[in-house]
């Protein structure tokens, strides 16, 4: 039976990670369910678990750096993220739609990323925003794009001796923003499909355009190829590009269950967002 730990310091946690390959637990909302054995029994996993929820000084908090980047500590909860006024809108929207209140008070951003479920709520907007993940170990620190870190369904590039320390979101300014999560119910629902999109228009030119699809493949999907069909094109050309763009995006996603529903609904959400650009709707949130 695996022995579980509560390290007193981050150094102790990094040592446990290195020596015992202990699984870090901050909120527990995924791990406690994965190891569930029923009434009166402590969950059990195939490796030791180390509880790090109290290491707030080292792994918590949300701050804005001088360059405008927002740094979210790995054990910041969905509730903290949803109520922060420095966290970008797309990420706040996703955090506020995770589970219900009690879950948001426990679930952390590091856990949501580390679990790497294609239906996870936070990776989708973070990948839209080119967020980077900061990984620490006894040997130092490395940083990589979250899109590269999450390799597929439930698989990441996390090394056995590493801990997710924080997530860094570079600054951005969008003319139009879109976020939609579709679930079975308004609250307490796992994402059936989600989409974020953003665009920046300058002097009649689309200078930035991006989208990310959640629950539409083994990982969050961003198609730079499809995005590049719209970037640096004049707004008046967009209407004519829409059919080819939608086809390219449809090609990029790979939903395995209910594919027709997911493809059709993704197309409709993208169409709505592009329509706002084409029509020159007032700046801000596209609904």
């Amino acid at each position, binding site marked *: 039976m695996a022995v579980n730990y509560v390290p007193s310091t981050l150094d102790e946690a990094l040592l446990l990670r290195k020596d015992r390959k202990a699984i870090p637990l901050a909120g527990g909302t995924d791990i406690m369910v994965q190891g569930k054995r029923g009434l009166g029994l402590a969950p059990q996993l195939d490796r030791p678990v180390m509880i790090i929820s109290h290491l707030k000084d080292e792994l918590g908090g949300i701050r804005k750096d001088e360059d405008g980047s927002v740094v979210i500590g790995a054990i910041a909860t969905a509730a903290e993220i949803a109520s922060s006024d420095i966290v970008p809108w797309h990420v706040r929207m996703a955090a506020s739609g995770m589970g219900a209140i*009690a879950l948001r008070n426990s679930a952390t951003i590091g856990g949501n990323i580390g679990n790497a479920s294609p239906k996870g709520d936070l990776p989708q907007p973070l990948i839209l925003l080119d967020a980077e993940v900061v990984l620490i170990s006894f040997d130092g620190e490395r940083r990589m794009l979250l899109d590269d870190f999450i390799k597929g369904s439930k698989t990441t590039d996390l090394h056995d001796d590493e801990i997710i320390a924080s997530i860094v979101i570079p600054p951005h300014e969008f003319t139009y923003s879109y976020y939609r999560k579709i679930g079975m119910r308004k609250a307490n629902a796992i994402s059936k499909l989600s989409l974020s999109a953003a665009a920046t228009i300058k002097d009649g030119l689309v200078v930035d355009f991006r989208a990310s699809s959640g629950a539409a493949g083994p990982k969050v999907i961003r198609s730079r190829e499809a995005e590049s069909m719209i970037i640096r094109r004049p707004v008046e050309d967009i209407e004519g590009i829409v059919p080819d763009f939608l086809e390219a995006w449809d090609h990029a996603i790979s939903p395995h269950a209910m594919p027709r529903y997911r493809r059709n609904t993704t197309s409709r959400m993208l169409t709505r967002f592009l329509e706002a650009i084409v029509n020159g709707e007032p700046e801000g949130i596209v609904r």
Partner: protein
Amino acid sequence: MHRQIEFRVNGNKVVYSGDPLTRLVDVLRDDLRLTGVKEGCGEGECGACSIIKDGRLVTSCIIPVGACLGSDILTIEGIRDTEKGRCIVEAFRDGGAVQCGFCIPGMVMAAYVLLSSNPAPTDEEIRVAISGNICRCTGYDLIVESIRLAAERGGALWQ
């Protein structure tokens, strides 16, 4: 390394020295005999095991006791004899909110957190506040009305 987990439950100091991955709901029910805390789904979905940890509503079935280091935990037993707790319990009774009763301790905890931060919630805000608490008797309307009654009756109590 913390070999013992020290925290407070309803104002009393608790020292736990078993497996830190033990579910908080089991410590509360089996070790501390606080059986007002109910377990429904065991997956954090139904809200029956809701308790208040450091002022925030959480589901105790998916919280390991090791994550409660230094925490202040409140269960239904810790609030039911307080003025605020009585206000909610009496409103639930008078408003006919209770059918089988299994979800009620969790509902009361959710209502307590809501009214403590929002003394005069709208019906929509009440529904959002209990959106993680499932009532299989489906008596939601009477529960929402009873929380509104607790807000009205409590008045300054919740300010």
